[in-house]
C-alpha cells in the first residue's frame, strides 16, 4: 500500500500540470485538436489513479479544456471525488469544475447532496464559502429542497463572509424551489438590517431581484427600503434600492409622490454619476406613474432634463449614451420638455459613435412636429447619403418612415413631399427595406385620395426608370417598390398622363427578371391599365388605336405565360385568353371598353391589419375541428413567396365572361349587392362603390381633387424633395399673410375641410393647414370587433413561480424540509450516512403537500391582501390616519412609524398649503374678516347675545307655527322674486364628443356612502359606446366596483349613447372621513363610432366631493334645535361675506339648495338652519344679513367639518 502511494507520487512528477498543458497547446498551434485529444487521454489515465492530488490536477486541466469548448461531462464523477477531498486546495478545484460543467441534467449531481451539506457545516469558513459559491452555479430543484434549511441556518452565521454568501445563494434556491421563499423571507428581511454592510447589500440585492419580477408582492417593504434609502451611504445599495423603487412606483403612485423629494435631493447632492443616473431614471418612472397633469412636478422634470443635458454634453461617450437613453424615457410622457433640446440631439446625430447615433434617432421620433418634420427628415436624408454601413443606413430608412408615418401621418402637411421622399429613398442601393417603402407608398396612395394623381405620376416614372430593375435579384430589396408602383399605376390608372407609355414600360422583357410576386402584380395591373386605355380610345373614337393596344398585349403577354412562377403563369394565361377574346370582338367592331373596365369597377378600401383577427367567431363554429381528416403528410407545401400585401388575396373574383350583355351585368350587380348586404364578412363603409355603379363609370365621375398648383404636377424625371421644403415655407408664409388679412376683415373663418378621424385637432400652437385637402381614410374594422388583447405573459417564465404573497403569516405546513430523524437545531452537525433512498421516498408526499398548500393559499390570499393594503396605505397616507390605529405590520412597526413621523407631516403641510392657496383664490375678500383677536372676541360676544335673542324669540313663537317653519323656505314665500332655475348637476368635463355633469347625493341609510349620478350627454354625431369610467381611488374615497375587478379596472357605463341623447349613470363611493372635501381624478374612455369609422377617445375629469355633498337635508324643530345648541358639545366657527345684494330669501334658498340645509326659523333678516351629515354630525347655522354683507355662524359636532363647510359656503355666497 505504502509502495503504491510512493509510486503514485513519483508518477505524478511526470504528469503535466495546467501550465504545461497551456504551454503545450501554444506549441501545437497547427494540430491543436490532436494535441488536446492526446492530453484528454492522459487525463483519463490520471483520473484512474487513487492519488487525490493527481485527480485534482487532472480535473484542473479539464476545467481549462472545458473553457476552451470541450465537453467534460464524462468526468462528472471524478469531479465529485475531488470535491470531497479534505484538502481545501483540491476541494476548490473540484467545486470550480462542478460550477462550470454541472447543470440540471447531470445525473450524478444527486450524489453531491451530503458532501455539500457536510461542507456547508464545516468549521472552516472557506470550505463553507467554496461550497456556497459552487452550489450557486449548479443548484437543482432537488438540491435546493434538501439544502434550503442548511443555507437558511447559514444566514445567521457568525462570519459576515458566510452570511453574505448564504443570503445571495438563497436567491438561486428560491428560483429552483419556490416553496422556500415564504419560510425564508422573514430572515431575509432581517438581513436588510444586518450590522455588516456587505450582508445588508446582499440582502438588498436579493430582494431587489425578486421584486423586479413580481413587484406587487414587495410593496409592503417600501417603508423599510425607504428608510434604507434615506440612511444608507453605500452607493451600490442605493442604486439597487432606487432601481427597485422604479419598479414599484407604477403599482402605487402615492409611493412616487413620497419618493420625489428624497430623490431630487440625491440628484442635487451626489457626485457619483452612476447614482445620479439611476435617480433620474427612477424620477422618470415616478413621473410616468403619476398622471402628468400635476403642475408641481414640472420642476422635477426640468431638473431631470437639465441633468441629462449635462450628461449628453459630456465628452465621455458612456455618459452621452446613457443620457440619451434616459431622455427617450422622458420623451414618452413629457415630449415638450425634451423638444427644447432638439439642437443637442440633432448634434448627436453627427456623432462618430453608431450606438449614440441610434439613440439620438430614437429620440427624434418623438420630437417632430408639423413645423419641423421637413427639416428633420431633410437632415436625415443627408445622413442617408453619407452613411457607410448598410445596417445604419437601413436603420435611418426605417426611422424616416417611422417618423413620418407616426400616429396616422399626423405631422405630414404635404403628402407630395412625402411621396417624393419615398421615391428618393428608392435610390438606396442594397437596402433590405424595399417592402417598407412599398408599403408606405401603397398606404399613402390608398388612404390619401388627394395625392393619388401625384403619386401615380411618380410611380409611372419609377416603373419607367431602369435602376430598380437592375437590383432585381435580392429578396426584399429595393425592387419591392415596383410592386407598389405597378399596383398604384394600375388601380388609379385614370390619373395617368400617358397610360400607353406606362403600359409599355410594364411589358418590357426585363420585367421577367423580377421576383414572382412582383411579376404577378404587374400582370394584373397591366390589364387594369389596358382597360382604362381601351376606354379612352373608344371614347375618342380611335378604334384603330384600341386595336393596336390589344395587339401589344397579345404580343407581350406570352413572356409571362412562360414564367416559372405559378401565380404569374396562371394570371397571364387567363388574361391572355381574355385579351384574345377582346381582340375578336374588336375585329367585329363591338365596343368592349365598358365591359372590360367593369372588371375593375369599385374601389378597394384599406382594411386594418387586425380586422380579420377581430371578426368574432360565429356561434357553433369550431375552428379547431377537422373538416376532413388530414391526409398523410406526404405532400410538401409549395414554397411560394409570402405575399406581402393582403389586398392581393382578396382581389377579384374570377373574370366574368365579357360577352354578357348589359342586362346580365346589371342583374349580377344587383345580386352581388344583395349578397354583400347579407354577408356579415363583407366590409362596407363608404357608399362609393355603389355610387359608381349607378352612373356610367367614367372619368368625369372620379372625385375631383384640389391640388395646390404651386407644385408642378408633371415632374420630369424624379422629384427633389428639397424643393418642397422651400415651397412649404413659402406656402406657410402666404397662409400667414392671408390669415392676418382675414383677421383684419374680421371674417368668420370657415373651417377647413381637414378631417382627421382618429386625432382631435389639438395642436393649437401649430395650426398649419395641410397643403392638400387631405382625407385620410381610417382603416376599416369589422362590426362588433372583439377587443382582444392577447396575454403576452410567457407561461414558461421561471420567475412566475416566485409570485408568492409574502405578507401572510406562515402556516405550520410551510416549514423548510428537514431530514426526518433530526430536528433543526442539530442539523448543523453533519451526518454522512443519510441514505439517498430515503430522500426519494419523501418526494411524493411533498408534492401532495404543495398542492394542498396552494389551495389553502388561495383562500387566505384575499383576507391578507386587504390587510396588507391597509398597512401600506397607512404609511403612504398624506392625510391623518383614521382614528383606530392600523393593525401592526409584519415589519417591526416602530421603524415604520418613525419614518412616518419624519415624512408624513411634511407632505401634509404641502397638501394643506396647496389647498389653502386654492381656497384663497376662491374668496379673496374674506381676508379682511381675519381681524385682530380682540375684534374677534368682541364679535363673538355679540353673536352670542344675538343668538340668545334668537332663541328667546323662537321660544316665544306659538307651537303651531313650528312645523311650518321647519319646512324649507323656498317652498313657501311666493311673494319673493323668482330664482333663476338651477340644477344640482355641476359640469364635470366636456369635449366635442361628450358632456359630463354630476351630482353627489348622500343617504342616511349608508353612513359612509354617497351616490354619484353622472349625466352623460352625447354632443357629437357619432354613436358613443363601450364607455368606461375609471376613477383613481384615494385613501379616503373609493369607488364601489363590481366584485372581482381590480382598482385599476374601469367600470363600464351600462348604456350606449346615440347622437344627441343623454343618460344618467349612478356610482356608489365609499367615504371614510367626511370632514374634509376632496377630489378624485377619473377618466371616461369611450369609442365614438360614425359612418367613417370608430375612434377611441378619452375625457379626463375631477370629481369634487365637497363637504356639502355629505349633508342631507333634514328638517329640525326649533326646540330640538335649541337643545342641540345648549348641549355645549358643538364647536363653533363663523364667516362673513361682504358685497351681497341678493335678497335674503334667495340667499337662504341658495344655501338650502347647494348645501342641503333646511331653515329652522326665520325672523326678519336672520335665520337659523340645520342639516345633518351622512355620518350623523349635526350642523347648525345662524345666517344674518346686514346692509351689504352676510355673516354665517355655525356650530357642529366636528370642527373640521364645520370649517370646511363654511369655506364652501363662503364660496357660494361670494358669487351672489
Amino acid at each position, binding site marked *: 500500500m505504502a509502495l503504491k502511494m510512493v509510486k503514485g507520487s513519483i508518477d505524478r512528477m511526470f504528469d503535466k500540470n495546467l501550465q504545461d498543458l497551456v504551454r503545450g497547446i501554444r506549441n501545437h498551434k497547427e494540430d491543436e485538436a490532436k494535441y488536446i485529444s492526446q492530453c484528454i487521454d492522459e487525463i483519463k489515465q490520471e483520473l484512474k489513479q487513487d492519488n487525490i492530488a493527481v485527480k485534482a490536477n487532472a480535473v*484542473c486541466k479539464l476545467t481549462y479544456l*472545458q*473553457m476552451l469548448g470541450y465537453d467534460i461531462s464524462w468526468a462528472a464523477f471524478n469531479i465529485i471525488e475531488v470535491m470531497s477531498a479534505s484538502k481545501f486546495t483540491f476541494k*476548490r478545484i473540484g467545486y470550480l469544475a462542478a460550477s462550470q460543467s454541472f447543470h440540471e441534467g447531470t445525473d450524478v449531481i444527486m450524489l453531491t447532496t451530503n458532501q455539500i451539506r457536510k461542507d456547508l457545516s464545516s468549521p472552516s469558513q472557506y470550505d463553507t464559502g467554496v461550497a456556497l459559491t459552487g452550489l450557486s452555479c449548479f443548484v437543482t430543484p432537488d438540491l435546493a429542497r434538501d439544502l434550503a434549511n442548511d443555507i437558511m441556518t447559514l444566514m445567521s452565521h457568525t462570519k459576515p463572509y458566510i452570511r453574505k454568501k448564504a443570503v*445571495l445563494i438563497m436567491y438561486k434556491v428560491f428560483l429552483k424551489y419556490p416553496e422556500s421563499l415564504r419560510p425564508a423571507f422573514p430572515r431575509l428581511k432581517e438581513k436588510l438590517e444586518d450590522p455588516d454592510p456587505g450582508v445588508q447589500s446582499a440582502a438588498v440585492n436579493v430582494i431587489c431581484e425578486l421584486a423586479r419580477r413580481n413587484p406587487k408582492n414587495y410593496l409592503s417593504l417600501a417603508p423599510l427600503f425607504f428608510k434604507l434609502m434615506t440612511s444608507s451611504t453605500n452607493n*451600490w445599495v442605493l442604486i439597487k434600492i432606487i432601481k427597485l423603487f422604479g419598479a414599484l412606483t407604477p403599482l402605487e403612485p402615492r409611493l412616487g409622490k413620497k419618493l420625489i423629494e428624497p430623490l431630487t435631493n440625491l440628484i442635487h447632492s451626489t457626485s*457619483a454619476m452612476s447614482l445620479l443616473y439611476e435617480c433620474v431614471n427612477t424620477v422618470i418612472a415616478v413621473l410616468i406613474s403619476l398622471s402628468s397633469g400635476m403642475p408641481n412636478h414640472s420642476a422635477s422634470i426640468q431638473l431631470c432634463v437639465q441633468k441629462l443635458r449635462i450628461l449628453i454634453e459630456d465628452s465621455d461617450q*458612456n455618459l452621452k449614451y446613457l443620457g440619451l437613453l434616459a431622455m427617450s424615457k422622458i420623451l414618452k410622457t413629457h415630449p415638450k420638455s425634451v423638444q427644447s433640446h432638439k439642437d443637442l440631439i440633432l448634434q448627436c446625430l453627427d456623432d*462618430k459613435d453608431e450606438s449614440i447615433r441610434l439613440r439620438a434617432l430614437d429620440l427624434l421620433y418623438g420630437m417632430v412636429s408639423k413645423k419641423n418634420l421637413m427639416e428633420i427628415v431633410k437632415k436625415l436624408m443627408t445622413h442617408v447619403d453619407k452613411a457607410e454601413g448598410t445596417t445604419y443606413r437601413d436603420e435611418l430608412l426605417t426611422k424616416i418612415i417611422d417618423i413620418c408615418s407616426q400616429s396616422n401621418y399626423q405631422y405630414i402637411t404635404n403628402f407630395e413631399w412625402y411621396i417624393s421622399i419615398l421615391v428618393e429613398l428608392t435610390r438606396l442601393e442594397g437596402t433590405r427595406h424595399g417592402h417598407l417603402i412599398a408599403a408606405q407608398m401603397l398606404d399613402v396612395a390608398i388612404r390619401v385620395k388627394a395625392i393619388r394623381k401625384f403619386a401615380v405620376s411618380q410611380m409611372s416614372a419609377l416603373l419607367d426608370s431602369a435602376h430598380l430593375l437592375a437590383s432585381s435579384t435580392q429578396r426584399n430589396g429595393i425592387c419591392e417598390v415596383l410592386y407598389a408602383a405597378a399596383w398604384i399605376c394600375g388601380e388609379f390608372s385614370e390619373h395617368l398622363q400617358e397610360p400607353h407609355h406606362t403600359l409599355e414600360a410594364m411589358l418590357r422583357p426585363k420585367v421577367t427578371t423580377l421576383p414572382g410576386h412582383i411579376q404577378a402584380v404587374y400582370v394584373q395591373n397591366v390589364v387594369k391599365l389596358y382597360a382604362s386605355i381601351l376606354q379612352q380610345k373608344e371614347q375618342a373614337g380611335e378604334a384603330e388605336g384600341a386595336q393596336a393596344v390589344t395587339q401589344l398585349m397579345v404580343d407581350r403577354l406570352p413572356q409571362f405565360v412562360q414564367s416559372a412562377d405559378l401565380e404569374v403563369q396562371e394570371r397571364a394565361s387567363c388574361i391572355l385568353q381574355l385579351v384574345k377574346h377582346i381582340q375578336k370582338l374588336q375585329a367585329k367592331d363591338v365596343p368592349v371598353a365598358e365591359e372590360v373596365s367593369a372588371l375593375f369597377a369599385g374601389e378597394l378600401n384599406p382594411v386594418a391589419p387586425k380586422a380579420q383577427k377581430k371578426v368574432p367567431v360565429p356561434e357553433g363554429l369550431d375552428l379547431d375541428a377537422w373538416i376532413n381528416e388530414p391526409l398523410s403528410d406526404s405532400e410538401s407545401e409549395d414554397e411560394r413567396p409570402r405575399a406581402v400585401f393582403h389586398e392581393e388575396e382578396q382581389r377579384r373574383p374570377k373574370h366574368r365572361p365579357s360577352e354578357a350583355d348589359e342586362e346580365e351585368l346589371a342583374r349580377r350587380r344587383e345580386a352581388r349587392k344583395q349578397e354583400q348586404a347579407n354577408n356579415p364578412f363583407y366590409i362596407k363603409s363608404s357608399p362609393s362603390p355603389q355610387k359608381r355603379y349607378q352612373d356610367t363609370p367614367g372619368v368625369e365621375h372620379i372625385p375631383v381633387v384640389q391640388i395646390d398648383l404651386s407644385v408642378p404636377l408633371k415632374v420630369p424625371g424624379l422629384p427633389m424633395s428639397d424643393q418642397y421644403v422651400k415651397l412649404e415655407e413659402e406656402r406657410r408664409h402666404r397662409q400667414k399673410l392671408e390669415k392676418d388679412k382675414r383677421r383684419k376683415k374680421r371674417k368668420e373663418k370657415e373651417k377647413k375641410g381637414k378631417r382627421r378621424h382618429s386625432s382631435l385637432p389639438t395642436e393649437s400652437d401649430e395650426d398649419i393647414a395641410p397643403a392638400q385637402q387631405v382625407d385620410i381614410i381610417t382603416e376599416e374594422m369589422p362590426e362588433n370587433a372583439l377587443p382582444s388583447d392577447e396575454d403576452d405573459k410567457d407561461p414558461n417564465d421561471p420567475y412566475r413561480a416566485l409570485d408568492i404573497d409574502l405578507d401572510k403569516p406562515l402556516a405550520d405546513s410551510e416549514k423548510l424540509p428537514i431530514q426526518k430523524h433530526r430536528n433543526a437545531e442539530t442539523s448543523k452537525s453533519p451526518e454522512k450516512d443519510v441514505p439517498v433512498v430515503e430522500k426519494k421516498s419523501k418526494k411524493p408526499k411533498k408534492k401532495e403537500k404543495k398542492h394542498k398548500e396552494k389551495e389553502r393559499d388561495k383562500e387566505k390570499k384575499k383576507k391578507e391582501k386587504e390587510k396588507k393594503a391597509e398597512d401600506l396605505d397607512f404609511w403612504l397616507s398624506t392625510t391623518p390616519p383614521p382614528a383606530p390605529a392600523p393593525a401592526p405590520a409584519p415589519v417591526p412597526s416602530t421603524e415604520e412609524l418613525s419614518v412616518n413621523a419624519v415624512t408624513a407631516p411634511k407632505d401634509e403641510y404641502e397638501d394643506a398649503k396647496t389647498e389653502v392657496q386654492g381656497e384663497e383664490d376662491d374668496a379673496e375678500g374674506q381676508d379682511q374678516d381675519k381681524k385682530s383677536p380682540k375684534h374677534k372676541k368682541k364679535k363673538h360676544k355679540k353673536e352670542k347675545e344675538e343668538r340668545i335673542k334668537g332663541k328667546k324669540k323662537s321660544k316665544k313663537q306659538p307651537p303651531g307655527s313650528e312645523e311650518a317653519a321647519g319646512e324649507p323656505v323656498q317652498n313657501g314665500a311666493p311673494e319673493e322674486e323668482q330664482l333663476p332655475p338651477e340644477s344640482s348637476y355641476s359640469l364635470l368635463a366636456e369635449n366635442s364628443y361628450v358632456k359630463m355633469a354630476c351630482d353627489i347625493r348622500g343617504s342616511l341609510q349608508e353612513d359612509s356612502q354617497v351616490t354619484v349620478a353622472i349625466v352623460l350627454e352625447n354632443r357629437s354625431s357619432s354613436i358613443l359606446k363601450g364607455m368606461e369610467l375609471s376613477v383613481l381611488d384615494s385613501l379616503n374615497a373609493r369607488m364601489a366596483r363590481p366584485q372581482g375587478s381590480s382598482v385599476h379596472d374601469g367600470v363600464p357605463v351600462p348604456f350606449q349613447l346615440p347622437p344627441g341623447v343623454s343618460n344618467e349613470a349612478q356610482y356608489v363611493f365609499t367615504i371614510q372621513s367626511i370632514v374634509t372635501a376632496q377630489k378624485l381624478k377619473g377618466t371616461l374612455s369611450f369609442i365614438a363610432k360614425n359612418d367613417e369609422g370608430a375612434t377611441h377617445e378619452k375625457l379626463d375629469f375631477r370629481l369634487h366631493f365637497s363637504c356639502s355633498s355629505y349633508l342631507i337635508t333634514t328638517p329640525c324643530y326649533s326646540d330640538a334645535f335649541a337643545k342641540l345648541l345648549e348641549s355645549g358639545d358643538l364647536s363653533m366657527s363663523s364667516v362673513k361675506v361682504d358685497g351681497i345684494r341678493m335678497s335674503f330669501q334667495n340667499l337662504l334658498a341658495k344655501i338650502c339648495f347647494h348645501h342641503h340645509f333646511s331653515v329652522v326659523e326665520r325672523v326678519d333678516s336672520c335665520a337659523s338652519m340645520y342639516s345633518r351629515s351622512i355620518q350623523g354630525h349635526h350642523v347648525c347655522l345662524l345666517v344674518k344679513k346686514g346692509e351689504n354683507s352676510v355673516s354665517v355662524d355655525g356650530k357642529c359636532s366636528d370642527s373640521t367639518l364645520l370649517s370646511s363647510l363654511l369655506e364652501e359656503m363662503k364660496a357660494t355666497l361670494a358669487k351672489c
Partner: protein
Amino acid sequence: MIKAILIFNNHGKSRLSMFYQPYSEDTQQQIIRETFHLVSKRDENVCNFLEGGLLIGGSDNELIYRHYATIYFVFCVDSSESEFGILDLIQVFVETLDKCFENVCELDLIFHVDKAGLVGAPARAVSAVKNMNLPEIPRNINIGDISIKVPNLPSFK
C-alpha cells in the same frame, strides 16, 4: 444580474470565461465568437455599452465591456445592473489582476488561468447570484496559496 463574464484577446481567443446560466459547450463558444464580433468592430472612442448579443438572454440584456491593451473584458448583464457600476467593477477586476501578477499582461492570464479565475472568484461567487458588492469584495482574501490585497477603490465615476 450578471449573466456571463467573457475575457478574450484582440483575435477573439478566449482567455477566461464564466457563464452563470447553463449553456452547452458549443453554445458557449458561439456566444464568445458572437460577442467578439460585436465588440471588435467598435472604435476605441465609442461608448462601452452594446445592446443585444442575440444568444445570451435577449432584449433585456446588454454587454458592457472595456478594452485593455490586447484584452477585452466583457460583462453580460441584465437591466437590474447599473451600467456605471459594472464599468467600475471591470476596472477593479483588472486592478486586482494587476496587483496579483504585477503588471499583468495577456500571458499571465494564459498561464495562470486558475489563479486569474480565483481573483475573479469572489466576484463570481457574488455575481453568480447577484451583482457584487464592490467595496466589500477583495479587501483581504486569503485563500490557500494566494493572498491578494486590494487598495482602496477609486471613487465612483
